[in-house]
């Protein structure tokens, strides 16, 4: 057997080239995985540890201001339901997610509170949207379900922002209620659906576009439901929007934009962007909503930063899931 030194050299060179390329890609992959995992795990711990600060006052029979306890409880349930759905967290995190889901369900009195709210205000959509997080995790409230079936059949679509109409459509899809909507028409009515010039955006519109993606893809479960032109548009401009809102420390919106990256058919997961958000997370897991000073008062801390914690859990969970399973 003769040895061809050139062949050997060429082979090695080729192999080394691939090894180098792969090692760069793998290093970036590992960095994002590390940040996403740490961000989600610590934020979930923080939500779990402080969950009682987000409870209704003892003996409360009314939800009071819906934005104060009711809405945040639903958001926490959403984050927990996605951790359970994706199943990429460790056993301790999965147990905490289950406990958070049970805690929020119990705050809603196993769905009775949602049922009563729907009974009283039968055209409101927030009981459906909140119920969907629990339905995603296999929970059910029969009487509420019957009300929601009826509302869908009546078809009284109250006038809301286009991205909110998508939220209702996704909640119906998740709960298996009602007929399939015209997803294309709903999508094209949103800011994102019009693919405007990427500089014609502001902070509020930024949130609108993230929610369009969340609902259209059911929080990353259906990345290919995003029309190709919207996926291309987001791939082009997401880095700019993340850069701009990172510079002004709008961490909550940055986290939402990172979720959008994890919801794309070809996910956008830039380690540098993840590193910045991970670097502002406190040791106890708190993720600040913005660059303002963080209060020392536990109740204020929870009230101010519960939302970015939810965002961080979802972002880290979905990123990890896409990195592990594609």
């Amino acid at each position, binding site marked *: 057997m003769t040895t061809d030194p050139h062949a050997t050299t060429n082979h090695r060179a080729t192999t080394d080239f691939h090894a180098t390329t792969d090692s760069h890609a793998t290093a970036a992959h590992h960095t994002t995985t590390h940040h996403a995992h740490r961000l989600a795990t610590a934020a979930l711990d923080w939500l779990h540890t402080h969950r009682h600060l987000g409870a209704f006052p003892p003996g409360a029979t009314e939800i009071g201001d819906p934005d104060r306890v009711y809405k945040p409880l639903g958001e926490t349930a959403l984050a927990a339901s996605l951790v359970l759905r994706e199943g990429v967290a460790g056993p301790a995190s999965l147990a905490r997610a289950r406990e958070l889901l049970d805690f929020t369900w119990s705050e809603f009195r196993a769905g009775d509170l949602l049922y009563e709210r729907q009974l009283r205000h039968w055209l409101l959509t927030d009981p459906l949207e909140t119920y969907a997080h629990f339905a995603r995790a296999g929970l059910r409230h029969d009487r509420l379900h019957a009300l929601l079936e009826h509302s869908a059949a009546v078809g009284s679509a109250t006038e809301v922002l286009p991205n909110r109409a998508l939220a209702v459509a996704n909640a119906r899809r998740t709960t298996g209620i009602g007929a399939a909507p015209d997803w294309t028409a709903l999508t094209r009515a949103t800011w994102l659906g019009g693919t405007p*010039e*990427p*500089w014609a*955006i502001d902070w509020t519109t930024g949130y609108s576009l993230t929610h369009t993606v969340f609902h259209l893809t059911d929080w990353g479960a259906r990345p290919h439901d995003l029309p190709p032109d919207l996926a291309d548009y987001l791939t*082009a*401009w997401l*880095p*700019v*929007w993340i*850069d*701009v809102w990172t*510079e002004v420390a709008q961490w909550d919106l940055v986290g939402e934009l990172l979720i959008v990256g994890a919801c794309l058919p070809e996910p956008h997961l830039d380690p540098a962007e993840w590193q910045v958000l991970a670097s502002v997370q406190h040791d106890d897991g708190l993720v600040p909503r913005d660059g303002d000073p963080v209060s020392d008062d536990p109740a204020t801390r929870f009230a101010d930063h519960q939302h970015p914690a939810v965002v961080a859990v979802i972002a880290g969970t979905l990123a990890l899931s896409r990195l592990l399973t594609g």
Partner: protein
Amino acid sequence: MTTGGRVAETSLAGAADVLAGQVVDALRGRERPGLVAHVDACGDRTLVLGAVRLVGSDLFAPHLLTGHLLDPGDVEVVSDSFACFPVVRAPASHEQHVTAWRDWATATALLRLADPGEADPGPPGDADTVLGDPVEWQTWSVHVAQLAPLALPGLGGPVVDAVFGQPLALARGVTRSLLRRDHATSVRLARWTALLHHDRIDQPLDPHLLAEHLRLYAGTSARTALDLAITRRLLEAA
């Protein structure tokens, strides 16, 4: 000399604004004195030559865009400005590289207008050195904005080729500067988007909407007006 430096600097900026305003007039088809007449009329020759050096290749935007004829005296004025403020021979810092490229643009514009058969002076370096890596589109696009005087038709060269090859990085830079309300950078980058449009290069932004937005929102300084007048002419000529 407690105040001398500041007065000189302010005056130079003012002199450059006056000169830029004259180029805008020429681009809009208004009457204006020629460069030679302007220099002769100015009391401080060093100051006005400094202004010539600052406005640089843009002095010849009306010639390159609207067919103005070159006055042989213009060449002499530019030569005097280079003699008065010598060129950077061996650029080291980023600022020196930018200056070297802007000087190259002035010399190349003159060459295109005065004697098209003559060889180029040769670029003062490679595009990557002055622009950086387009993957780092934030800094890359700021460097592209600094080289807006190269965004003129017919100049060509490695920097123009590099920008033409990165329409997405350019568009991201435009978007970032607009969202940061950095209008000085936006108008310079808008010139580049207009040049890409002029040369029929596909890009992910609408250069017409961009130019109109900046006309309405970017203010009315002489420098901004000049960049936007060149942008408009490039779009019209496409």
